[in-house]
């Protein structure tokens, strides 16, 4: 065997260039860590009395002011409504845009790009910022919160719907096309059965997220339990803050349980 042939049979997982770039990446990561550690500005005085501050805060929270349960529950019901209605509106808007984004359903680059632009816009603006925007348009209240949740969720749900559609088995679609099915029939009997589990999974997951997100929208006046939280915080009634926080915690856990059990049933 010649030397050249011997060299050809020398197998390594990475090419020298790949090795170099991997090393460069590790070096960069370590450097970044060192530099960031050196620039953390912790004021020592704050750190020293942190334990006292924390115990003080918990002492003020205990015992929770049970008389505050009434406004908290009202706020919570509003929060659930905001989250649910917001999710439904988001899905209604995200499905058609998701169809435009899926490259196999809409083989048009300009339309795909437009849909992706809508998704990025929706996702890159925080729900609190969406809420501020809608409070400015419609005034404070749950309507602004609902729309904020809806617009924030379009990007998330739409992007995932589009991906689910792109993963649908192309063969089944081809078979329906070959049978002379219209576009609508192909969507309803070819794509929909294939993406149905993903669809419900995405919708429930987003509803779960939206319950948490809508709980704080009241801080900018967009309705829900956040209004009760904001009031209590501003008045420094920590025993009332405690009631609201516990209530939110319980609802988030309950939502989690509901979503998990429903999801195992539909999948």
């Amino acid at each position, binding site marked *: 065997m010649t030397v050249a042939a011997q060299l050809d049979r020398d197998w390594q997982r990475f090419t020298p260039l790949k090795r170099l770039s991997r090393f460069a990446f590790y070096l960069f990561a370590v450097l970044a860590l060192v530099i960031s550690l050196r620039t953390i500005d912790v004021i020592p005085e704050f750190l020293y009395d942190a334990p006292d501050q924390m115990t003080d805060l918990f002492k003020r929270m205990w015992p929770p002011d049970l008389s505050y349960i009434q406004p908290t529950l009202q706020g919570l019901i509003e929060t659930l409504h905001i989250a649910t209605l917001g999710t439904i509106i988001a899905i209604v808007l995200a499905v058609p845009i998701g169809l435009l984004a899926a490259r196999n359903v809409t083989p048009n680059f300009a339309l795909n790009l437009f849909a992706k632009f809508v998704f990025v816009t929706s996702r890159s603006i925080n729900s609190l910022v969406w809420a501020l925007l809608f409070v400015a348009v419609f005034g404070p209240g749950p309507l602004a919160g609902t729309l904020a949740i809806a617009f924030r969720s379009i990007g998330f749900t739409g992007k995932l719907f589009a991906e689910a559609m792109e993963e649908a088995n192309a063969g089944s679609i081809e078979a329906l096309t*070959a049978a*002379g099915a219209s576009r609508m*029939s192909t969507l*309803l*009997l070819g794509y929909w*059965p294939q993406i149905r589990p993903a669809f419900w999974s995405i919708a429930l997951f987003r509803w779960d997220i939206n319950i948490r997100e809508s709980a704080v929208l009241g801080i900018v006046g967009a309705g829900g339990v956040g209004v009760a939280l904001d009031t209590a915080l501003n008045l420094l009634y920590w025993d009332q803050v405690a009631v609201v926080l516990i209530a939110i915690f319980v609802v988030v856990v309950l939502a989690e349980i509901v979503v998990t059990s429903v999801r195992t049933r539909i999948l």
Partner: protein
Amino acid sequence: MQGQVSPLASAAPQGDDSRALVLRGLRKEYRAGQPVLRGIDLVLPGSGLTAIIGPSGTGKSTLIRCINRLVQPTSGEILFRGQDLAKLSGRSLRSARRRIGMVFQEYNLVERLTVMENLLCGRLGYVPAWRAWLRRFPAQDIARAFDLLDAVGLPGFATRRADALSGGQRQRVGIARAIMQEPDIILADEPTSSLDPKTSVEIMEILHRFAAERNIPVIVNIHNVELAKRFASRIIGMTGGSVVYDGPPQGLTEADLKTIYGGENWME
């Protein structure tokens, strides 16, 4: 090529020519200047089972997909039932497609639907989308589907989900779905390539039976030369995007196979 084809065309059974298929100068280039089909001229009679054999990548699949326009031919004519299929688009293409049944190598069922729903998918060219969505198919379609399930040997499978079936069972559903279309022709693209030898024979028997009983011409792409010879009344050998053999199965010699597949060691 034309000279080789014409005698067979005239030998086609008279009276069935309403379902005859004529390809003229059919050409397909996925990339400009690299033809996969180099001007195919064929006259396929309006009955019987025709097998297309040839090595992988020789354009058999492309040829069959050009006929129902899953692939757009670059040039040429596809004459069927008084229309040039190559020129159709939109609604007229859809209504031409619903009379062309297709059977696939990977069955291409909608996995999460039941067997009955998959069969009814064969009616999507006839039934409006909203009725299909609500599963309100005409009663005679449902009755037909039950009859076809019996005919392909799957009685009692109507409510089973497609993803719970074996390969052979799925292909039976695939064939039944194609017949649901009340097709004037059936295209089968490697219908047995994913199946074991015994099931392959059963599937070919079903296709052969439908071709004979219902007088539907069937065109089958197939890799297995023995199966092709056993079931086809006519064999078309392709290589490099051209037809190099066109005749009865008895006439297929070792020399022909050598021309089609190249080399000879594999034949031993």
